């Protein structure tokens, strides 16, 4: 029997984590994500899970990587200042191909800025925050239900591709309460245990994919390092070929599976002159604005990006194929805008509606932009 709850986005995220099989959480209190830690501190012990409040966010990111190699699906949750501190260890997780889930409930930034207000200023940090080349996966929920669903999806993708996955939420979605429906047949991807064999290579060069990952204690005696390593996991730092092969594979396993990972939703785009593109919290305003515009007979549609990373360029391009103008609505001064522009600039004029200050743009504000741009 499906169950219904009227809960906060952050609580739904915690519920989703437990449903996905998360049994280890390490975190550090930070507004506006703290309710995720609080909920998991209460709920994890009820399902045999472990909760640790670490000394800082650097330690939190380290602990969940350790937890993951210890055989537990592991997660942390934070906001801008915390995600900044976590970046080095997040890079380590990409390099060591450790499945973890990082939830970022974005707030006004940079620095400590606006702890209780919404923003989407960390999108490029999810993409490029740690040094070097890697391909992250990020999901952006636009409702409490999606915060639940996307947290589960994040765990599944993390296991599927042995990769850190970001859930890029924002203060609006984290703090508001809505109804969620929890189905009783949730699809969960379990970690695959490798077969015991003398030829097992924990970092094998498998095309477009990943080798199954053992837990520490399983008897594989593997070495995991952030240094450039060969397929056995042994450091091989001065060999250009080893580095090239390793990093290419780490990127390709995500890029070559974009059609399976990427997801957008679109409405009324077929005949639209103007398409509004957004993700996360602002989608709520966009949907209402576009419905109002349509009711007034304007040819307007919208695209909602579920997975900002890897950026679904083909899907966005296709949905916007007939548009003359595209408006990207986001709560920063232009981040995903550049991705949309890159994908669509040959066929349409791409405009930015960047809103900072902490409040969702209202549907009327978006309508104004639609009228201004559509009227050109």
């Amino acid at each position, binding site marked *: 029997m499906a169950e219904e709850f009227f809960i906060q986005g952050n609580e739904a995220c915690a519920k989703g984590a437990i449903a996905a099989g998360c049994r*280890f959480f390490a975190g550090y209190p930070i507004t506006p994500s703290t309710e995720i830690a609080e909920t998991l501190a209460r709920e994890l012990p009820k399902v045999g899970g472990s*909760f640790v409040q670490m000394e800082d966010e650097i*330690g939190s990111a*380290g602990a969940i990587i350790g*937890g993951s190699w*210890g055989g*537990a699906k592991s997660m942390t949750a934070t906001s801008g200042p915390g995600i900044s501190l976590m970046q080095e260890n997040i890079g380590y997780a990409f390099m060591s191909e450790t499945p973890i889930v990082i939830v970022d409930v974005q707030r006004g930034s940079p620095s400590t800025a606006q702890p209780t207000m919404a923003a989407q200023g960390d999108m490029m940090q999810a993409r490029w925050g740690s040094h070097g080349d890697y391909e992250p996966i990020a999901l952006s929920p636009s409702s409490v239900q999606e915060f639940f669903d996307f947290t589960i999806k994040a765990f599944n993708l993390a296991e599927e591709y042995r990769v850190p996955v970001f859930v890029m939420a924002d203060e609006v979605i984290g703090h508001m309460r809505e109804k969620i429906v929890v189905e009783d047949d949730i699809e*969960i991807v379990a970690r695959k245990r490798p077969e015991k064999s003398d030829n097992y290579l924990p970092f094998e060069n498998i095309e477009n994919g990943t080798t199954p990952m053992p837990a520490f*204690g399983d008897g594989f005696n593997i070495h995991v390092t952030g240094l450039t390593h060969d397929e056995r996991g042994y450091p091989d730092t001065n060999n250009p070929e080893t580095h090239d092969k390793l990093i290419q594979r780490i990127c390709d396993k995500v890029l070559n599976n974009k059609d399976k990972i990427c997801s957008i939703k679109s409405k009324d785009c077929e005949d639209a002159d103007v398409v509004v593109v957004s993700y996360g919290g602002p989608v709520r305003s966009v949907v209402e604005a576009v419905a109002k515009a349509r009711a007034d007979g304007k040819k307007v549609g919208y695209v909602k990006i579920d997975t900002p990373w890897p950026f679904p360029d083909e899907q966005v391009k296709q949905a916007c194929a007939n548009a003359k103008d595209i408006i990207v609505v986001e709560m920063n001064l232009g981040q995903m805008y550049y991705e949309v522009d890159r994908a669509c600039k040959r066929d349409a004029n791409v405009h930015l509606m960047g809103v900072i200050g902490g409040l969702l743009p209202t549907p009327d504000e978006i309508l104004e932009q639609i009228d201004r741009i559509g009227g050109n």
Partner: protein
Amino acid sequence: MSESKQNRFLQYMREDRLPHIFCPGCGNGAIINAFLAAMEKAGMDFDNIAMVSGIGCSSRIPGYLDCDSLHTTHGRALSFATGLKTANKDLDVVVFTGDGDAASIGGNHLIHAARRNINLTVICINNNIYGMTGGQISPTSPKGSFGTTAPYGNQDTPFKLAELVAAAGATYSARWTTVQIENLVLAIKEGLENPGFSFIEVATQCPTYFGRKNKLKTPTAMAAVMKANTVFKSAADRMSARELEGKIVVGEFANTTKDEFTENIDKISVEKSGKKTVINSAYETEL
């Protein structure tokens, strides 16, 4: 080489990773031997040991040992180890770290891991210098010693790590040197057996960098100075601060019992779910 002359600890090594990167005269070899001897003395199952390390010469040790090993980021080994041990409380988790890794960039993790009394055995190899980056001063460099970043002599007061960790709440903390291997073996054995946070600081020689910068060019010279400067804790307790300047105080700084971190988590789990925390749950679909 005949069988009988082979080092009996070679069975625990990843032979395919040899030769190692350590310099001639480095203390790391002696410390690996001391660790393996202590592990055998403690009757531990090597297969149940998982090692975690940070960045630095000492942090390369787990890479040469044939067990699960997590070579992590600079200073963060203890946070990774906290996650690993908490996720699988049955593992015996050993951390190899150095003075820069544990006490400088990782200082916060060090005191908090000690405060939690999480059951980890930490071997901190203190050579008073950054070796891997080429001889910069560290938080344990003696006042007045030279490094590439202290060309006019170090002006800072060094940390006393074993004392610091004891004060932070560890249930076992000791300091020995590479010239007191028997004491070191016993201390590591005690640390491995202690069901809580155990910290064994090993004062060691780095002839390549500390020695060269401080007119102690040979390992033997360094060992001689280390021996001459060593004071047992019992004696040190009766000495003045001035008398202790430049001395290496050896002995135990904590040996006590206290609630252990992961056992407390298990206790809450038993209370709330009726069982201890689950292990290897990532591989399950039905939870």
